[in-house]
């Protein structure tokens, strides 16, 4: 069942969603629905220790008491949590010894995604932990990382091999009681990535994970845990594409970052889940909890390019616990057609002399709604805290909306907080200028949009920056009338 050029051409013709295809790998599925039995089933399937099962069950108990949040500026039909399959693993459960053992069809899928393993292994310094339907099936560069003492593996492997580390840090940043979706994730998460950088080590390559929803109707509940020990540095990349589906798929991930004293974590995301078709049918619900904690002089930097998902609900946050710690948030969120995004960040300043920067660029086209929602909180003891926020919105049509909801809470008199937001459309004079110089309108808009997002795109690692620019262009294709 090769993927021929003709088929590819057809796909491109459809152009609705570039990466909409389904891999035919039989899944080992749990029955639909959510109850204690399912949780025990998942835990057993994954051969988990007792404490983790307890963690899951406790989370489930909490979740049952919680109600779905409704405060976000998004409207959607709430998913039926009993109509979701909570576990689905590719059939082959045995681990691959070498790259040659990998199912050829899987390789093909990766090729289509543009992440040819061979090429990556040979040419780039990127180690890829490929997550397909919740179970990690291929991990590369492991050996090389191991030399430095860096642990980069799937979450389930980490539970088996590094239970102490996982036990110590899991749930320490995002407690299972944090919110509705975090609790759900804590109860039913199937896999994810785990990364540990030992003291004083500078990770020599960008670590990246490709997530991908595959089986129809399977919610993905990823869990990522990145621990950077004292004085270490890591750059972590996360990118996702999902096959075209008609029913809504739920994605409720939890990402926890821990930057110990003097450590630095750079976490970049390119999100391109299926956004639904032109009439707003289908698409992925992306309800993610991402949070990092910074100890003394540590730094966490979130960069995200959000172009996909029917509904996005995502606030990568930093808890600046240690003195002199730094939090950064750079975001480009593009919404088209009927997409809705409510995204932003939280910067919680607890330590003295903490600094945070927020740069958010929203672009809304079609009939979409794009909101920035952010919190800057300066606690009583956070003397000399500094925050700078800038949230710009660009409106492409007269049917879309751009909204800004910043929360600024300050309890310290030596803090300096600046927030600035603007909303406007692309200036006609700018377009005129380009047209006059022989640049077509579509190209001109792409040029202007790219310039508008430059501040954020510059923060992305090289590989991603290229991909992100392409994504921006694709997402906005035909959106200008």
């Amino acid at each position, binding site marked *: 069942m090769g993927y021929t050029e003709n088929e590819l051409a057809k796909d491109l013709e459809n152009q609705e969603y570039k990466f909409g295809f389904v891999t035919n790998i039989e899944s080992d599925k749990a029955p639909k629905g959510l109850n204690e039995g399912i949780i025990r089933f998942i835990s057993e399937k994954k051969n988990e220790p007792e404490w983790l099962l307890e963690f899951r069950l406790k989370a489930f108990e909490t979740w049952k008491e919680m109600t779905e949040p409704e405060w976000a500026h998004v409207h959607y039909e709430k998913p039926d949590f009993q109509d979701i399959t909570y576990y689905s693993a590719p059939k082959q459960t045995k681990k691959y010894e070498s790259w040659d053992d990998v199912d050829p069809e899987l390789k093909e899928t990766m090729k289509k995604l543009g992440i040819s393993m061979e090429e990556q292994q040979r040419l780039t310094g990127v180690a890829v932990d490929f997550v397909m339907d919740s179970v990690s099936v291929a991990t590369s560069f492991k050996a090389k990382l191991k030399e430095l003492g860096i642990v980069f593996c799937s979450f389930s492997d980490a539970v088996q091999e590094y239970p102490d580390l996982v036990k110590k840090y899991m749930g320490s940043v995002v407690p299972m009681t944090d919110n509705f979706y975090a609790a759900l994730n804590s109860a039913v998460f199937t896999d994810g990535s785990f990364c540990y950088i030992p003291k004083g080590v500078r990770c020599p390559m960008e670590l990246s994970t490709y997530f991908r929803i595959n089986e129809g109707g399977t919610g993905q509940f990823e869990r990522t845990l990145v621990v950077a020990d004292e004085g270490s540095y890591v750059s972590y990349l996360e990118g996702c594409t999902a096959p075209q589906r008609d029913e809504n798929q739920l994605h409720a991930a939890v990402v926890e970052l821990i930057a110990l004293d003097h450590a630095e974590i750079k976490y970049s995301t390119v999100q391109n889940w299926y956004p639904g078709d032109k009439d707003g049918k289908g698409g992925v619900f992306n309800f993610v909890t991402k949070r990092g904690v910074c100890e003394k002089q540590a730094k966490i930097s979130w960069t995200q390019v959000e172009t996909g998902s029917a509904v996005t609900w995502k606030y990568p946050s930093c808890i600046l616990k240690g003195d002199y710690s730094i939090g950064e948030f750079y975001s480009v969120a593009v919404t088209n057609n009927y997409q809705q995004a409510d995204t932003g960040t939280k910067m919680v300043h607890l330590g003295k002399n903490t600094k945070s920067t927020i740069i958010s660029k929203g672009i809304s086209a079609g009939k979409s709604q794009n909101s920035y929602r952010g919190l800057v909180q300066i606690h009583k003891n956070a003397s000399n805290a500094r925050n700078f926020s800038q949230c710009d*919105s660009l409106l492409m049509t007269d*049917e879309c909306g751009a909204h800004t909801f*910043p*929360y600024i809470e300050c*309890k310290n008199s030596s*803090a*300096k907080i600046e927030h600035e937001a*603007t909303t406007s*459309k692309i200036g006609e004079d700018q377009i005129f200028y380009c047209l006059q110089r022989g640049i077509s309108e579509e190209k001109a808009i792409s040029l202007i949009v790219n310039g508008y997002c430059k501040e954020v795109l510059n923060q992305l690692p090289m590989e991603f920056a290229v991909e992100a620019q392409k994504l921006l262009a694709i997402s906005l294709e035909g959106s200008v009338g």
Partner: protein
Amino acid sequence: METIINTTKLDVFRSHLTPTAINLPSAIVQEVNAVLDQTDFPTTRQEAWKYTRVGKIAAISAQQGITPSDDTSFPIIDQEAYTIHVVNGQPIWTTAQDKLPQGVHIKTLSSCNEAELQQLFEKKIQGIDVFQALNIAYLTDGLFITVDENVSIDHPIQLLHLNTTDSQVSNVSHFISAHKGSKASFIIGSLSSANSNSFTNSSLNVHVAENATLTIDKLQVEEEGNLIVSNELVTQENGSTFTINTITLNGSLVRNNLTIEVDGTNCTTNLNGAYLLKGNQHVDNHTVVDHKQPHCNSNELYKGVMDDQSTGVFNGKVFVREDAQKINAFQSNGNVLLSDSATINSKPELEIYADDVKCSHGSTTGQLDEEAVFYLRARGLSEASARQLLVSAFISDVLDKIENDAVGTFIDDVLSNRFGWQR
């Protein structure tokens, strides 16, 4: 069958109040009571009250109905203005009714007939909150003011609210209608002299018709310990100009809900606010500017200085509805914290559904520039006066927008008495 009776804080609060004696249509009274029966006071779990606790209000055992005699003298802000004092919720004609300028009609709600009241109140009851419902159900009185077509008033009309006794609860509701082409300015003051726990729950509906110009200077200088919740709804028609300056200098709990619906083209809307807080004061300004029609401008500037354990809250929202193109909406909020125990919660929001607009908002929080203080000290100013000068310069951006000199002088007096400095 057993019935469980849950007595809410609101029920307890209401048990001390006297239902309104105003001749309101019974359907309206029934409806607001139905709202009150079903709810309780808002909690911080509700988004609109996230930063403001109303426990102080709920704890009041209301005293009602003591009206001082007419010959008592009450404070006046502008000596030349046409003055009506609203004492413990009851209007007193300080300027005799027949001395009002031509083309201005003022009526108390207690002298309105049911049909008039029906007209005034029927629109008010849609989607009301607890305080608006309380305002109607226990309405003490209010004024209905009309300014005739093309009438321009020489001096402002001033409505001064006072509670003279502790735990007095006044529910007042005013209506101002500025007809086509008219021009008027108002001073609305809250100057309660009671020692503590008096509560003014006021409501104001303003209609600014085509090409009319209306200015309101709103001064909240209650004696420390008194509470205010005020709801204002302003609607603007084509070509109208509306300006409101909200200055809060005293009072233990002040909540202002200011909503401006710009339902006409080519309108101008100016909202300015200043809040200077100390002690345990809590002041919450919620503003909404709702642009429903194209070609309008709105400017919003709120500035606050918080000292001691005081808390300031600012929530400004700008809506630009679909088809409301060519809107210029600007919003800015600046805050200075003078003490480590002071708090500011600022939430400037934009909700925009039209594309050809220019909207921006900004919010800053900081402290006095130490270098500027040093500069002034190097020139012989004491530490205290250097700081005062800087605070004064900061807040003057807003205060300078007040055109009425008498109001300016009044504010200066309060500043020097309460904060010990001059502008």
